[in-house]
C-alpha cells in the first residue's frame, strides 16, 4: 500500500495541551502512553490527573509499539476527501505493556486481512506537519 494511508488534510490532528506530548514523541518515532509517576497507572486518553490515585505528576511513558487488534471496522462509506480512500481499516490496538488501547489504521496489507487478535507493530507516517502512528502486521 502506498503512503499516505489517508489524506492529511481531512484526517485532522487536533493538538491540545493534554495531547501535545504524545504528538511530540511521534516526531521522534516513539509511541507513548500517559503514565502516573506515583502509582504507575497507564491511561488513555491523557487526563489532567491520574484516574487511579488522583496524582498530578504524569509523564509520557514510551511503550514498545506492539500490540493486538482489539476490534476493527472496514470503512466503505468515506466522508469528504476520505471517499477516495475507501475501503480502509480503522483498528483499535491494545498496546503491549500499557494495556491501553489506541485507535489507528492497519496498513501494508489488504483491508480484509484484518482480524481481532492480529499482532501488530507501529509504523510511522510523516505528513510533514505531523508524524502519525499507524500499524502493520507484526513480523
Amino acid at each position, binding site marked *: 500500500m502506498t503512503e499516505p494511508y489517508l489524506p492529511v488534510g481531512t484526517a485532522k490532528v487536533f493538538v491540545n495541551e493534554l495531547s501535545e506530548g504524545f504528538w511530540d514523541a511521534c516526531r521522534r518515532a516513539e509511541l507513548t502512553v500517559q503514565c502516573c509517576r506515583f502509582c504507575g497507572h497507564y491511561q*488513555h486518553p491523557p487526563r489532567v490527573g491520574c484516574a487511579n490515585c488522583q496524582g498530578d505528576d504524569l509523564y509520557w511513558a514510551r511503550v514498545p509499539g506492539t500490540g493486538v487488534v482489539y476490534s476493527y*471496522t472496514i470503512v*466503505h*462509506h468515506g466522508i469528504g476527501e476520505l471517499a477516495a480512500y475507501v475501503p480502509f481499516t*480503522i483498528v483499535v490496538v491494545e498496546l503491549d505493556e500499557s494495556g491501553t488501547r*489506541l*485507535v489507528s489504521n492497519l496498513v501494508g496489507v489488504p483491508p480484509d486481512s484484518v482480524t481481532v487478535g492480529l499482532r501488530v507493530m507501529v509504523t510511522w507516517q510523516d505528513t510533514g506537519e505531523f508524524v502519525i502512528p*499507524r500499524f502493520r502486521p507484526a513480523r
Partner: protein
Amino acid sequence: MSDRAQAAIAGFGMTELYKRGTATKTLAGLCCEAILAACRDAGISPHDIDGFTSYADETPPDQLAEALGMHELRYAGAVFGGGGGGSCAAIGNAANAIAAGDAEIVVLYHAMRRTEERRYGGAAGLAYHPGSEWASPFGLMTPAQSFAMIVRRHMHEYGTKPEHLAALAITQREHAVRNPLAKMRKPLTLEDYFAARIIADPFRLFDCTLENDGAAAIVVTSAARAADLAQPPAFVKAVSQGGPPSWANPLYDHNALPEIYPTAGHSTIARNLYRKAGIGPADLDVAELYDHFTGMVLLQLEDYGIAERGQAGAYVEAGHARWDAGKVAVNTHGGNISEGNVHGTTHIIEAVRQLRGTSSSQVEGAELALVTAGPSMIPSSSMILAKEAS
C-alpha cells in the same frame, strides 16, 4: 413506590416525517406543529403549557413560549449531550419538575432538519470534539464507525453474526410495513439486506438509522391532571440516567473497560431503572430501544437482561422481537431504521401507543414498556412507562 406525585404522559404529536432536507418549516416551526398536535391529542390548549423539557435541541424555549401564546413559562430544562441520549432523561426532568410543583404541564419537544452540513457521516464529523484528536487522524469520524467496532468486538466475544443484525433489520421493517406513519414500508428480505452497500463493516445500509426531517412532542403532567384529560395516561413508572464513565469513550478513544466495551453502556442505567421501578425484565411487554444501529439494539437487549449476555442475536433470530411473538417485542413502530428518526422521541410515543392499545403492531395486553434513549456519550437514559398508576 414513593409518596411523591407520579407523572404521566397525556398526549403526543408528530409532524410528517419528511425526506431529509425537504421540510419547509424552520426547526421552531416544526416544533410548534408537533406541540399543537400533542395538545390536540391530550385535549389541552397550548396556553395551558407552563414548562418545556428537551435534549440536544436547537430551539430555545422562549421562541416556542412566544409562538404558542403561553401565559407563563415556569420551567425549562435540557439534558446534557448530543444526539438521542437524553430523550428519557428529559421526561425524567419533566416528572421531577411536576413533582416539585415547578410546573403543571411540561412539554417535551425535539426537531430535526438534516440539511447537507448536518448529514450523518457528513462534514460535521470533521469538526473538533473533545477527544477527536484520538480519532480523526485515523479517519474515525462517524458514529457508524465507532459503533461498528463495538459490535465487531461483541461478534468476536460471543459469536454474534451479520445474520443476527439482518434479522433485527427485517423484524423492524415488518413492523414499519404495518405502520402507516413509517417511511420504509416495503418489506426487506435477507437478500435485500446483504445486497445493500456496506457503510462500516459489519454495518450495511439497513443497519443504520434513517435521516429525515420532522419533529415530535410529548405532553407530561401529573397523574391527577392526566386523569381529567382526553387520553388514557401512560404513567411514568421510573426514569434512570447516567452511565459508566469509561463507556463514554468508545466514540473516540475506545478505552472502555473490557467488561463493558462490547455493551451498549446501559448496564448501570438498567440496574438503577429496575430498582426504581421495582420490576425486572421478565415483567416487560414491549421494549422500544434506541436504534441508531441494529447492533446496538442487540447490546441493549443484553444490558436490560431481556436476553442473556451474548444471546441477543439468537433472541432476534428466533423471532422473539416480533410484535406478535409473545415475548418482549422490540421497536414495534419500526424504529429509527424503518419508521423514521426524531432522536428517540418516537420511541417514547410508540410506547404510549402500546399502553393505550393503539399501536399498529399492538402487543396484546401491553402493560409495561421499556424505552431507551440513544447509547452514546453519557448521560444516556431510559424509562419504564406503565398502563397502571403506581
